[in-house]
């Protein structure tokens, strides 16, 4: 009995960390778009769904209900999700990237809703509202806790790679240009930076990561349906994670993902213990409290748990050359 309980707790912990990792990938994607570049993407759910469907269709077995039977291996499915979401992000970005914050938010929501309509209505390709089931999960042939732990390892690896790349990019000259565009677009344009081009790059990289997160989620649940594009569970939750964790800081994005998902899932565990007629209602109370928590964080601690740390400027690199000490240091790249 105790060993069963221990196994249950272990499986719960592993699934919690897996979900937090998937949300971590999404939050890093949003951090590149919003934290680095200042792009208000409110259509996270759309890119998430594209990634999930692409990987699901390419890896799932043959089925009369949707186009399939390609039987690609899992890593190629992930890669395809990344590429397709990035490519669609490029098309959407080409059209929308010049829009200011609120307008971009409205446009990206509109695009995400159009994706959802397509996924729901093109039944021949996506099985419509019934969604795609039996998506293969790697290592699922292994025995009970090990298969889940191995998948967690895959997710952790993806999170690690995404984190390291995002950190490296953030510290590089590219990251400095991004932040300069975010903080003062006119100044960035004045020193000759291609503002639209850099904004587009930020948007595409973020969209690709969101597609990757969607693909991982599809393989984890072994199912994807059009409800996955419901803005609450993806777009909104990822925004809450990034804002609470600390926008502009990748560690903050990951911490926010872990903290918010733990809170979300632990309260779900609590409310499921209530009698059924209360359990349903308590779910809504939970969403209400999360919304209220977001408001408090926004009003009191608007920089989040881990505020953005700007990389130190290497003093030697910008030291005035000898003999011209009275002049000011040249501006950063």
């Amino acid at each position, binding site marked *: 009995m105790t060993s069963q309980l221990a196994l249950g707790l272990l499986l719960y912990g592993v699934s919690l960390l897996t979900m937090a990792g998937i949300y971590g990938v999404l939050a890093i994607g949003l951090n590149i778009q919003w934290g680095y570049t200042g792009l*208000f993407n*409110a259509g996270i759910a759309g890119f998430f769904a594209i990634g999930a469907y692409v990987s699901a269709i390419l890896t799932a077995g043959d089925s009369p209900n949707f186009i399939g039977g390609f039987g690609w291996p899992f890593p190629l499915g992930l890669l395809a999700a990344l590429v397709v979401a990035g490519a669609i992000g490029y098309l959407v970005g080409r*059209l*929308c990237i010049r*829009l*200011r*914050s*609120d*307008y971009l*938010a*409205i*446009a990206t*929501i*509109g*695009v995400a*809703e*159009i994706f959802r*309509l397509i996924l*729901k*209505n093109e039944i021949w390709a996506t099985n419509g509202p019934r969604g795609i089931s039996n998506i293969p999960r790697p290592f699922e042939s292994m025995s009970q806790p090990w298969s889940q732990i191995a998948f967690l390892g895959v997710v952790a690896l993806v999170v690690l790679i995404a984190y390291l790349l995002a950190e490296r990019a953030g510290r590089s000259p590219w990251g400095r240009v991004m932040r300069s565009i975010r903080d003062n677009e006119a100044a960035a344009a004045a020193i000759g930076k291609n503002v639209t081009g850099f904004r587009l790059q930020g948007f595409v990289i973020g969209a690709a990561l969101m597609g990757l997160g969607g693909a991982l989620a599809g393989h984890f649940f072994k199912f994807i349906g059009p409800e996955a594009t419901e803005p*609450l569970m993806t777009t*909104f939750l990822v*925004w*809450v994670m990034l*804002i609470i964790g600390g926008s502009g800081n990748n560690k903050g994005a990951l911490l926010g993902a872990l903290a918010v998902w733990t809170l979300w899932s632990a309260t779900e565990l609590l409310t499921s213990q209530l009698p059924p007629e209360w359990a*349903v*209602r308590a779910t*809504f*109370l*939970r*969403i*209400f409290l*999360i*919304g*209220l928590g*977001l*408001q408090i964080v*926004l*009003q009191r601690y*608007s920089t989040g748990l881990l505020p953005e740390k700007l990389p130190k400027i290497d003093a030697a690199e910008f030291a005035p050359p000898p003999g011209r000490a009275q002049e000011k240091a040249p501006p950063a790249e």
Partner: protein
Amino acid sequence: MVEFINFYLIPGLVLGCMYALGAIGISMLFGILRFAHFAHGDVITLGAYFALLFVTTFGFPVLLALPVAIVLTAIVSVLLDRSFYKPFRNSPTIYLVIASFGVALMIRSLVQLFWGVKVESYSSGTFSKPIIFFDTLRLAEKHMWIVGLTIVIVVALHYFLSRSKLGKAMRAMADEPDLAQVSGIPTEKVVRATWIIGGGLAATAGVFLGMDTQLHTNMGWDLLLPIFAAAILGGIGSPYGAIAGGLVIGLAEELSSYPWIGVEPLLSPGYKTGVAFALMVALLIWRPSGLFRGRVFT
């Protein structure tokens, strides 16, 4: 032809009225507070459920519950502004946008908490029988109420904006907020009035939608994007444009599935709502000033 009027034109007009009522509020709030109010859809839902409360518990006819819902929703809107939007008056608008996302979720979860997620309707209102004109033209009584009351509200709003001191102050603030402030317009009072009008109109749209179809907790959220589309089409910040935009979007959605070419619907009805989204995205990209060449806010 008569089929076209009965099943496409009239539903389009009715839908357009609801979009217009919501879009006026979105547009005025954008003009005066300079942010896209993403919780507007859920304010619409709240208004519809306030009316439901009075219809089911006190047995009000729905048209009598409407003014009550308007008052309650207007009060809630002012309180929302006080507690969640006012702290960000001088912050970047993005905080307001994120806060309004949170408010949307909070309102919806409260509605779900108190009323549940079942589909409801104002069953006590008996608007079922359509009146038939000239043997073929069918007009449902509820549709006549919706269109008629919308016209009354729009005319009243026009007189308020063009004749009253507060209405003029409101338009001044939407046009040039700094100039309005230095010329002594009480900005907070104008903001409060904007929330009262926006909230009241949102409640009206919600009650009309509930009368026309049914009530469910996502009804307002589903309305939000077409309403944004209408507000952008009419030129954001312009209440008159929003009315025109609402009618155009409502008609475009319904007429898109009319068999214009051959016998098949031009667009599968499943994509009906997509028409509004596509129109909206296209407008944002190519004509963000709206059809009537209004202003673009940066």
